[in-house]
């Protein structure tokens, strides 16, 4: 725990500060409810045409008027479409979209464009990209071994919430307390996985108590930054120096989360990485379809088992007669013999390969003078026997002497896979990895008088290796025996059916169907188990929450606190019992909460104007930066709440303003006078976020697979990137097929080793709340753009488009590329530069067509093309340049 100010500050100082804090609280702009300001009248009459369009413009113009400034002109239609497309979808527009709007740039066309973009799921993906930064969504635990966990259904929930325009108050409520809503739906409970996004540890030697304290602090920091832009985190160890938040407040906020079922140090051991429970099952459509399909097949096979045929009827009669004969004579089992170990390639290979005994066993056979078969008189039935060897197989063999025909149940167990032959006929084949246990497999066999040969093959993948067997002779259950004692003519229908049902479960005639049924049922179990789960928020008896003095988790002397709001923010309405997360959420989105609406609209503003009205997006406290347009901020916040927290309406309002529709170009005088654009008298230009850099390349090259949601995907990544991870050691399992070209929001987010190309463009690790990403400009970005295989592949795909769609002349192809990538035609000079580059490349690749082929071979996407390799490689060189241009990386 960090312990700020331990030695520097004394308790006395804090006491002395109290009056100042009270003062700050009374006057600080962010702590009183937003006032429904009236948009000012704008005096000046000679504003540019189209100004003002809505109330936003009135506020902005009024400030410009006071400063004696003018808004920037409107940008070109193409710039407008690009800006909207990147802002709302994080993707570039198509050439057709640009052309359509350029042909009709009317107000109505603009609004239609905005509405169309808002209605697409891509809008929801774009919004989710930002929200996931805030809530620190990732696919791994973040600490020490950084293990993967199951939480992506939450990410999909966020996307769908934005897509369906869920009101922000409900959006808030469901994330913090979806599980506590009355009759919570599955979706609401998935939303509550928000509470499980904190970093967790499995590191040996960690103290649960310490980490429980960390988890709480992590949650307090997150909820207070995301919804309140309050730096409550400062109060973990000491009262806030500047804002009205005491240490007690910090722990009272923490106490809201004390009911979440969790452990301090998660352990290894449970199966399939799923040790971060509790979990909630999330049925998928595909999974449900699969299960339904299996159910149909199961029903069909069951039907076959149940269908009466003459053959079965006859066999049953014979069987019934046999049962009434003299008591069965016990069969005599021969000694077990084993042969092995046999080795081969992979586990599957060793399992499948016939090493000989399948086609007949000769116990006396020798190999190189050594007997192949070893006798095991010591092996007793109904016990597990140990075998030795790595990835190897053993055969086990014994005879069964039967005096009079009988049926028997044979039970097997194996580590790992097993096959069983009876008299040379294979009755069981189960390729599986498992430890040996009694009665894992069951075979019912009918044996005639004479000697029978039982052969078993057990194949080991790695680790333990063993075998188990027992036989059950008297397989006729007592109740069937009783029923059979009644003469056939006197049996009632139920008895007849019971006997028949039993017969069908053992007759060799239906063995195939029964095997098929068992296999289908096993498949069903596996399918059910592979349906996604999400880490769930489950309320349980709340832990005791104490004020930890100076954040020290070992100190138990602090006062016990109950959930409650920071005192300066008022208190929750009186109610029965302990306050819950739902109470907290309800307070956050109550109309008189001074912060939440302001904080959220300010962040929306930042997405569309490049900076906030309050620049310190993460700090609305006294140390933050005051709003440049306080009335505008209040008006927007008030309007947002009045609209029923309608996110799309707020976005639409911002985007249909004239303020949004300004050029981002700035003349030198303006840049000097207002370097940070405090007046919003121009639009912002900024580098695309990391995901957009990649997604843009995927769109213009035609590679993008526009599938929404689903498990996180693993695109190309340099080999060995995870080699510093351990417990277990990690090898990146790159996806195949369409998952290589999905939107970057779906890229597996490994907190400790985020995909290097995303990280190079400032995507955060999401170990904590990121309110605002940096926008850096580095040589590593240049290396990614020039050399990352996905960008090289995108360049090839774009080159193929240049040839198939662009035309048969170089100039046409270049123009096509510029329109596709930059939504404009190249200038004469630009065209010259491109042609020169093309000429050089074409000459070089004509000299060395082999190099051209190697270049064209990069990436998994289909590569067939009629164009000669040197020609295509030269176009690819042009495409590479296009994707690396500053203009391609920038939102204007």
């Amino acid at each position: 725990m960090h312990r700020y100010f331990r030695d520097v500050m004394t308790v006395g100082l804090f006491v002395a500060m109290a009056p100042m804090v009270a003062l700050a609280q009374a006057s600080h702009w962010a702590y009183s409810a937003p006032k429904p300001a009236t948009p000012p009248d704008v005096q000046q009459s000679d504003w540019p045409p189209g100004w003002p369009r809505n109330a936003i413009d009135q506020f902005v113009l009024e400030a410009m008027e006071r400063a004696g400034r003018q808004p920037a002109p409107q940008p070109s239609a193409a710039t407008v479409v690009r800006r909207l497309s990147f802002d709302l979808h994080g993707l570039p527009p198509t050439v057709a979209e640009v052309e359509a709007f350029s042909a009709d740039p009317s107000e109505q066309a603009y609004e239609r464009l905005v509405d169309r973009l808002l209605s697409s799921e891509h809008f929801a993906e774009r919004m989710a990209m930002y929200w996931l930064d805030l809530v620190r969504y990732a696919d791994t635990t973040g600490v020490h071994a950084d293990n993967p966990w199951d939480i992506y259904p939450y990410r999909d929930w966020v996307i769908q919430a934005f897509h369906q325009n869920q009101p922000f108050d409900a959006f808030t409520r469901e994330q913090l307390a979806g599980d506590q809503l009355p009759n919570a739906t599955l979706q609401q409970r998935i939303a509550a996985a928000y509470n499980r996004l904190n970093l967790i540890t499995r590191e040996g030697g960690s103290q649960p108590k310490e980490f429980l304290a960390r988890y709480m602090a992590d949650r307090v920091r997150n909820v207070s930054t995301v919804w309140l832009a309050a730096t409550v985190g400062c109060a973990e160890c000491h009262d806030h120096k500047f804002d009205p938040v005491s240490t007690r407040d910090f722990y009272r906020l923490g106490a809201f989360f004390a009911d979440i079922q969790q452990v301090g140090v998660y352990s290894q051991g449970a199966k399939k990485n799923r040790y971060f429970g509790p979990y909630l099952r999330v049925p998928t459509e595909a999974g449900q379809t699969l299960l339904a399909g299996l159910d149909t097949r199961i029903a069909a096979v069951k039907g076959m088992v149940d269908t009466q045929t003459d053959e079965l009827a006859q066999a049953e009669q014979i069987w019934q007669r046999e049962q009434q004969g003299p008591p069965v004579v016990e069969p005599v089992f021969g000694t077990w013999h084993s042969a092995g170990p046999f080795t081969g390639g992979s586990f599957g290979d060793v399992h499948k390969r016939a090493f000989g005994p399948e086609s007949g066993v000769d116990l006396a056979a020798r190999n190189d003078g050594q007997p192949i078969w070893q006798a095991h008189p010591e092996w007793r039935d109904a016990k597990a026997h140990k075998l030795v060897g790595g990835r190897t197989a053993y055969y086990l063999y014994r005879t069964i002497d039967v005096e009079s025909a009988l049926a028997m149940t044979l039970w097997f167990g194996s580590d790992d896979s097993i096959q069983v032959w009876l008299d040379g006929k294979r009755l069981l084949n189960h390729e599986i990895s498992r430890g040996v246990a009694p009665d894992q497999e069951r075979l019912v066999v009918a044996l005639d008088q004479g000697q029978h040969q039982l052969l078993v093959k057990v194949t080991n993948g790695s680790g333990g290796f063993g075998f188990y067997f027992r036989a059950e002779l008297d397989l006729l259950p007592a109740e069937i025996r009783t029923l059979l004692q009644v003469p056939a003519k006197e049996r009632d229908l139920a008895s007849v059916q019971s006997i028949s049902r039993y017969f069908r479960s053992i007759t060799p005639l239906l063995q195939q169907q029964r095997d098929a049924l068992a296999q289908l049922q096993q498949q069903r179990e596996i399918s059910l188990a592979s349906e996604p789960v999400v880490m769930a928020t489950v309320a349980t008896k709340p832990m005791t929450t104490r004020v930890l003095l100076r954040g020290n988790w070992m100190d138990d002397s602090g006062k016990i606190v109950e959930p409650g709001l920071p005192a300066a923010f008022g208190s929750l309405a009186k109610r029965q019992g302990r306050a819950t997360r739902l109470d907290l959420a309800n307070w956050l989105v109550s109309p008189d909460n001074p912060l939440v609406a302001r904080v959220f609209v300010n962040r929306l503003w930042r997405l569309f104007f490049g900076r906030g009205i309050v620049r310190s997006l993460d700090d609305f406290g006294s140390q933050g930066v005051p709003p440049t347009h306080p009335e505008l901020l209040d008006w927007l916040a008030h309007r947002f709440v009045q609209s029923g927290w309608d996110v799309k309406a707020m976005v639409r309002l911002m985007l249909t303003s004239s303020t949004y529709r300004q050029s981002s170009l700035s003349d030198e005088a303006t840049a000097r006078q207002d370097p940070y654009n405090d007046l919003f008298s121009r639009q912002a230009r900024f580098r695309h976020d990391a995901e957009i850099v990649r997604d843009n390349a995927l769109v213009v090259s035609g590679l993008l697979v526009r599938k929404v949601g689903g498990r996180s995907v693993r695109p190309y990544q340099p080999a060995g990137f995870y080699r510093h991870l351990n417990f277990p050691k990690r090898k990146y399992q790159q996806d195949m097929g369409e998952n290589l070209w999905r939107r970057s929001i779906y890229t597996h987010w490994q907190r400790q080793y985020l995909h290097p190309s995303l990280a190079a463009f400032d995507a955060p690790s999401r170990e904590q709340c990121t309110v605002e990403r940096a926008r850096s400009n580095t040589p590593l970005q240049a290396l990614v753009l020039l050399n990352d295989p996905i960008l090289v592949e995108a360049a090839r795909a774009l080159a193929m488009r240049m040839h198939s769609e662009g035309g048969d002349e170089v100039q046409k192809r270049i123009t096509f590329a510029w329109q596709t990538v930059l939504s404009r035609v190249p200038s004469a000079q630009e065209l010259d530069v491109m042609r020169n580059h093309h000429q050089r490349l074409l000459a070089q690749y004509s000299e060395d067509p082999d190099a051209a082929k190697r270049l064209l071979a990069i990436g998994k996407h289909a590569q067939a093309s009629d164009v000669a390799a040197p020609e295509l490689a030269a176009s690819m060189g042009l495409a590479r340049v296009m994707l690396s241009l500053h203009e391609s990386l920038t939102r204007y």
Partner: protein
Amino acid sequence: MALRTNLSRRRFLASGLGAVAAPVLLGKSDLLAPSDPHWQGVVNPLHHPPRVKRVIHLYMAGGPSHLETFDYKPKLADLHGQPMPASFTDGQPIAQLQGQQLTCLAPQFPFARFGQSGQEICTRFPHLGSIADDICIIRSMKTDQINHDPAHTLFNTGSTIPGRPAMGSWINYGLGSECSDLPGFIVLASVGKGGQAQPIAARQWSSGFLPSRFQGVEFRSKGSPVLFVGNPDGITRQQQRQAVDTIAQLNQLHDNVVHDPEIATRIAQFEMAFRMQASVPELADISSEPRSVLDLYGVEQQDGSFASNCLLARRLAERGVRFIQVYHRAWDHHGAVKRSIDITANEVDRASAALITDLKRRGMLDDTLVLWGGEFGRTPMAQGSGRDHHIRGFSYFLAGGGIRGGMTHGATDELGYHAVQDVVHVRDLHATILHLLGIDHQRLSQRFQGLDIRLTGVERAAPIRAILS
């Protein structure tokens, strides 16, 4: 009176900040806009004359036992196998030995005095012994975190809350880079054979809330030394040159229209990337080193070993890289500490000494600071035949410009449990590193989520004056 003290302190903080980081009140995206490729640092001019220009941290990850390296405790041998006196351990945080019988484990190797200074060093590290007069041993280190991941995070960033910049990032942010074709913060890592390799998170070299240009860049021993530094197959160096030129020309033409200073930066960064494509492989190829140097380190080629990484560190230092971190990941000796130290010493001893000798021969030790140590030490108590994590006392050594060689600073108690004399907290070490570089640790800060963040945090921290020459 108290109030006035407080206010003046606050005023001091605020003004210090304003001087150091002008853009502090702005949003993060403005922090470094326009992003000058030739970053000169926010501490410009320096707060005081520097003693060193660069830092090499030989990072013994996993937590080396001070009791088998630099801190000899004969009393522990006397108590071997007997219960650890409760007076030492009561109320102390304990990791894996929690709730177990605590018994003493004797030092597993003899110590000897080395050099003219007669510094006491474990005999299993004879090469370090041979440079005893060049190094300053600190025996009184202390940290707050008892598990690897948080302890590394504290050691590298001064905090356990993720998202804070690593010291290499702070230093590059403060001072800028001295070379134009390599990043200013480079990380090398090797896995040893003597202990389990604890995972290392990239968080340990993250620039946190500082822009990613200050992030540590990992030099890998397999594949491209730096990610994406190699040309795609089928593209020659000449063609890459032409591509970069073409991009620059087009960017320039675009700049004529939009007048954006970021474009000049973009052009410069592509240029630097292109230079890195040549300089990085050249640098990573140690085969050009003379035989005598290879022998000094005991390496034949760049094989990802700690020894080859030490040699690489010197090559990076020569080229002006500001902060170099060389991880050796096999110091987590919960079991068989004797055998593990034996193996690990073989991997580390010679090369660590070689680096210091090599720097000295080249006259570079005068303006380089070398640090050697881990994220914590190990218990005087046995964990079987090994030792558990320990945070109340452990050792480090420093060498280079501004450091008094041949001295031992501080001490632990008679059983090597608590640092008791001249205690050096991790943040004091941070303050010392910054001090030697010409930075006042209290004056290098950045506002983030309401706090003025410093590498040394807000608790008391001070350079270790006694070890400065």
